């Protein structure tokens, strides 16, 4: 009977053939996803190291520390992002986004932190993406960090900048701290306008709340230095106004 012909163990069964294809597709996809997740974890871990390197900055070792951080950051790109790019070669970047997004966000955080310390300006998405382009095989579409991951990374950046600002005030670099304060305020203001338009607006909302806390922590620190510094200015006169920017070296 033809019932037998279509039984599960027959070879010429079109359904079976089709499902072999589906099975192969799903297996490939899962394996690729696993490899991407692993590459992303590596990117995360090593980007975090770069961020810690930047936090080792102090008044006197700026160039040295940043130089090392940039070298490490370049290594992240060469060793880990390149692997991510290789895995994603020719795939739909959006389909696997959830697998690599954490790593990319952390990389954005590290790269923009380095850049801000060096230049005082925000590293653009275009600049980051331009630097990634050489990693891809020129024949396929190159991995480009998307706006969302960039903005999510930027949101986390403000937390690191807050830590940096507190440290800089301790080190007497009040001007640097104020620069950070303005910069973070500006990012916060800009992101506030954009946040609800993002694909995953609720994630971003939480990050915005944390960000406002960071801004206010910096502002409170600046306030504290300011009132303390203002107290004796009437008495000391104006010739010694820099005295309020007390730092470690003054101890010795």
């Amino acid at each position: 009977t033809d019932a037998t012909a279509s039984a599960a163990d027959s070879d010429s069964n079109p359904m079976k053939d089709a499902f072999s294809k589906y099975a192969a597709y799903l297996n490939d996809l899962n394996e690729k996803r696993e490899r991407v997740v692993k590459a992303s974890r590596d990117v995360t871990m090593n980007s975090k190291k770069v961020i810690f390197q930047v936090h080792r900055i102090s008044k006197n070792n700026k160039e040295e520390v940043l130089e090392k951080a940039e070298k490490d950051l370049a290594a992240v790109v060469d060793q880990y992002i390149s692997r991510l790019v290789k895995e994603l070669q020719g795939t739909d970047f959006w389909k696997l986004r959830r697998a690599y997004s954490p790593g990319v966000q952390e990389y954005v955080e590290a790269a923009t932190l380095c850049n801000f310390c060096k230049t005082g300006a925000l590293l653009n998405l275009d600049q980051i993406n331009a630097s990634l382009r050489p990693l891809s095989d020129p024949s396929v579409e190159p991995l480009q960090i998307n706006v969302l991951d960039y903005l999510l990374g930027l949101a986390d950046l403000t937390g690191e900048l807050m830590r940096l600002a507190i440290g800089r005030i301790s080190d007497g670099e009040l001007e640097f701290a104020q620069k950070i304060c303005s910069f973070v305020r500006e990012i916060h203001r800009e992101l506030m306008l954009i946040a609800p338009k993002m694909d995953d607006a609720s994630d971003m909302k939480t990050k915005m709340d944390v960000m406002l806390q960071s801004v206010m922590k910096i502002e409170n620190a600046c306030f504290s230095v300011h009132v303390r510094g203002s107290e004796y200015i009437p008495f000391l006169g104006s010739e010694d106004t820099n005295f309020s920017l007390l730092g470690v070296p003054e101890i010795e």
Partner: protein
Amino acid sequence: QSLEKQFEEFRHQLEDSGSLRERIRSVALEIESATRLMHSSLLLIHQSRPVPEVLETAKRQIGLMRELFSRLAEITRECPGQYYRYHGDWKSETQTVVSLLAFMHWLETGSLLLHTEAEEKLGLNPDEFGLDIEDYLIGICFMSNDLPRYVVNQVTAGDYDCPRKVLKFLTDLHAAFRMLNLRNDFLRKKFDGMKYDLRRVEEVYYDVKIRGLAANGEKTGEQNDQAQS
């Protein structure tokens, strides 16, 4: 300044993608609405209306459906490579469409609507805007969920050969699904459900068989295996 400019640009991009998403959502809503009508027509099958009549009414939506999917494709053409960015906005609707088309196809031919056939029915060009395989598979599971109800109502209406045919189909389908390696996700949960559909159909088959109701039907049934009419 440059910072502001960059964010200005982002805002434009996000607004563009926001409005794109809105257009997609609106098409998806129309798909949902057409699906609802198709489903409504198809439900009459449970009230033992003649298959050809039911199919005819249900098929009336296919033209519209194709048009809606071609509009989806058109919209995503504006953002090449971002199919999966917006995928969440139409996937659930698409899964339901697949389940209905597969049910209709089975009623007509007695065989499974394959992935490529589903794409054809919806007028999709897989190079440009294809049917995601997981969506297809989930749709098939949804279809399987409706089969026990169909069998029960058919037997109630006196069609005693129906259980045998459905059982054979569902057994093969289940065997085919077992070839897949699934993650612990939605699809796996749906596939687990298929086991219960199979068991229910089997029970009905048993009920019919043990009462000798299936006996005659089995012979005449063989002839009509290709399509129910």
